[in-house]
């Protein structure tokens, strides 16, 4: 049944004392998919992982794997396997003993353990490292051993807890590609926890964005980036400009500029304030001070980044970040500029006091 829910969370609540870590989360994780829980630290994402693994028990709600409730099932009886943030490789065991550990617990015949270990190590390109100990491995190798140790027990669900956070930036990109390839080759349902939005966009089939114990949006990477459900998601995933605008009949107004309301926007009362979300790449700027379909702004600062020039622009009392993706051969802008927006890439929500306050504080 590809596509059906393999893991299902129903209204799961977890409290630590008076702190509500998970505040009623429902989530379906499809079979063979890679689902990412994305959120800032302290949002409850790791708690969800620990609940599914069985290290914690939910205070309310239920967790099902293949339709079977996991209530009361200890971690060692669940068909899940975790790749820990700091890998948690057994320091007193060699690479092959670490990988074989789960199979030996299942009392498999010696020969078949050896065969499976060999196969798994080669799948993860760890051949030749069998006799090494964890402390003799690089960070990337340790990461792959941890993955091998989890995969070899053929779990129904693979749980990965910020698995790249202990690697340096360059390695992170190559290892995440590897993880994605292996996940697809093995075809294993995977729940991946991270706070890195770029990582989430790069490897996920589905992303669930969490904040303060709640799931704010579930969708494909494109959904999340292009059609964020609220300003928080818009600001957390990628760069975004949040602008205040006034709603008029059939459009919104920023200063002297009137923009059409995008068709799938939530309803906002005429005369009320709205919040507009604009990605930097949905904004164009040009030299000069007059423009038919634009606003006049002032360049405050600019950062030259080679492939891009990032401008900070002041416009009708608000600040904008705008990227010029093709700066080659053009003079860098300064002083007054004309700013125009791509109306199809605007997102709009009614402005609540909470949102406005958040805009002040920034994401």
């Amino acid at each position, binding site marked *: 049944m590809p596509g059906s829910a393999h893991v299902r969370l129903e209204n799961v609540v977890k409290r630590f004392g008076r702190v509500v870590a998970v505040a009623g989360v429902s989530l379906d994780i499809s079979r063979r998919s890679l689902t990412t829980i994305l959120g800032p630290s302290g949002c409850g994402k790791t708690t969800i992982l620990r609940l599914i693994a069985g*290290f914690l028990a939910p205070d309310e709600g239920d967790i099902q794997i293949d339709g079977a409730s996991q209530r009361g099932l200890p971690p060692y009886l669940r068909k899940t396997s975790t790749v820990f943030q700091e890998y*948690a490789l057994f320091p*007193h065991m060699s690479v092959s003993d670490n990988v074989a550990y789960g199979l030996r617990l299942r009392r498999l015949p010696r020969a078949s353990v050896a065969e499976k270990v060999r196969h798994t190590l080669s799948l993860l390109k760890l051949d030749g490292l069998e006799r090494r100990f964890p402390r003799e491995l690089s960070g990337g190798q340790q990461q792959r051993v941890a993955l091998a140790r989890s995969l070899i027990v053929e779990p129904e669900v693979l749980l990965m807890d910020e698995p790249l956070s202990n690697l340096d930036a360059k390695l992170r990109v190559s290892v995440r590609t590897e993880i994605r390839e292996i996940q697809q080759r093995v075809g294993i349902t995977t729940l991946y926890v991270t706070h890195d939005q770029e990582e989430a966009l790069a490897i996920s089939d589905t992303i669930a964005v969490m904040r303060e114990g709640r799931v704010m949006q579930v969708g494909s990477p494109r959904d999340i980036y292009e059609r964020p459900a609220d300003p928080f998601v818009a600001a957390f995933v990628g760069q975004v400009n949040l602008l205040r605008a006034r709603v008029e009949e059939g459009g919104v107004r920023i200063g002297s500029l009137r923009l059409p309301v995008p068709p799938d926007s939530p309803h906002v009362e005429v005369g009320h304030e709205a919040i507009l979300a604009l990605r930097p790449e949905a904004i164009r700027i040009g030299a000069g001070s007059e423009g038919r379909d634009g606003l006049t702004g002032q360049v405050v600062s600019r950062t030259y980044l080679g492939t891009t020039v990032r401008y900070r622009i002041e416009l009708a009392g608000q600040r904008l970040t705008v990227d010029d993706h093709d700066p080659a051969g053009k003079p860098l802008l300064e002083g007054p500029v004309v700013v125009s927006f791509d109306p199809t890439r605007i997102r709009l929500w009614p402005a609540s006091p909470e949102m406005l306050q958040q805009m002040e504080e920034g994401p």
Partner: protein
Amino acid sequence: MGKATTARAWTDALLVRRLTVDPLGLGAIILVVGLLAVFVLFPVVRVLAQPGPAEWTRLLTDPRWLRLAGNTILIAALSTASAVMLGFLFAYATSRPDVPLRHLFKLIAILPLVSPPFVGGLAFILLFGRRGLITYSLLGLSGDIYGWHGLWMVQTLAFFPIAYLTLAGVLRRINPTLEYAAQDLGAHGFRLFRTVTLPLATPGVASAALLVGIYTLSDFGNPMLVGGAFKVLATETYTQVTGWGDLGMASALSAALLLPSLVLFALQRYWLEGRSYVTVTGKGSFADPLPTPGLLRWALFAGCGLVALVLLATYAVVFVGAFAKTWGVNWRPTLENFEYTVFRGRQLWNSIRFAGIAALGGSAFAVLAAFLIHRKRFPGRAMADFAAVLPAALPGTLIGVGYILAFNTPPLTLTGTGTIIVAAMLFRTIPVGYRAAVAGLSQIAPSIEEGAADLGARPLRTLWDVTLPLIRSAFTSALVFTFIRSMNTLSAVIFLVSPGNVVASASILALAEHGDWGQASAMAASLMSAVFLVLLLFRLLTGGRMRLFEL
């Protein structure tokens, strides 16, 4: 080779010349090296040089000595094994987050460390001896229970806290995520313990066993009190000196004890180094240890509770004995037992005085030695470092015999004085303060000191302003430790006491040997109370900042 020697001589000469620029530093180095040579190395050399060929031959061929050696090893091996098991039980139970009363168990487990080891022996006699509360008063038995069985039990209780402290440190630093990972892969219960927890703690267990082994090999007080006809090398050394005046044979016996001690010491210090699986990493995402399964939790509680009760009973027995008119016969409460020992005698005051001087002098000396040996360069540094850690491996009886031999004749005639007792206390405990100070120093980059010097501070000023504040905790912990150890020590000072200079521990042994159980108990109770009072006072003075025994 000639060339190398010349080069070596040149660098030495250069170093010495650089030191002459800093006369104070040079003076301090000469003082430290000189004292270590005279009070650590010289007595050992005297012991090894004392026996003639006849004594060595007797030691190696006479079945009597061989049996003694066998006894020593037997009781050390048995006590070490059981002490390490008990230590592991306490360390494991107190490392679990959910074992009831675990903080109380931590406290009780360190009691034997701050009281004299032979209190256990004394309590054992009071409970099971010829007039024992249990054997005689309750069961009406009259028999001889002295021997290796009782000694085994007493030594186990006396020395398991050393294993506990070592293992508690090791278990606490094992990353709890590893147990999560094992559970996640399908392990649980005893299998998880056997395949993950225990192997991770194994280097710690080995280390604890070697440490406890050094103590149980050379302990003197308990074999003396409850060993009865079961003699060991340490007690026989004492008999040879006091009974026969045979310093040659006593030296040979101490030397025989030195060899296994040194082996254990070297193994613990050099072989186990770098074999630990304990990693000092940042806090992981799964920082809390797993909850303990219910049955195991209560089993741990029951085990620790039983041991704690037995321990508390031993102390209770000694305190009750101190106030009973005649143990086992007349239970009327009285202060008579304190009359001649504590109120009129000088022994307790001597203990406090000598231990206090040894603690102050020893801590200062240890810190100074650590600073000079690890911050200055001078010929003979390695030897000085060796001399500063060596006493940890020296049996107390060897120090006692060595001091008699070394300081009985001019130029340094110290026998019969209080000074020799202070010196024995001081240099026996040097390694503790020295190692703590070295550990503290290794956290201070020399550049900090150079920075101070660069700003115009003279060497002494640098030491005072920069280095000392940074190793103050090493100093205070050495101060407390040396005081406690010196108050409670018996094996070395028993050879060195003289009329007027008797200390409490030696007096307890003498009283117990005469069967004056009440007076022995009174003295022991007073000694323990004095130690506790000083600890309490010190804690108040340092505003509770002093940390000792991980508390």
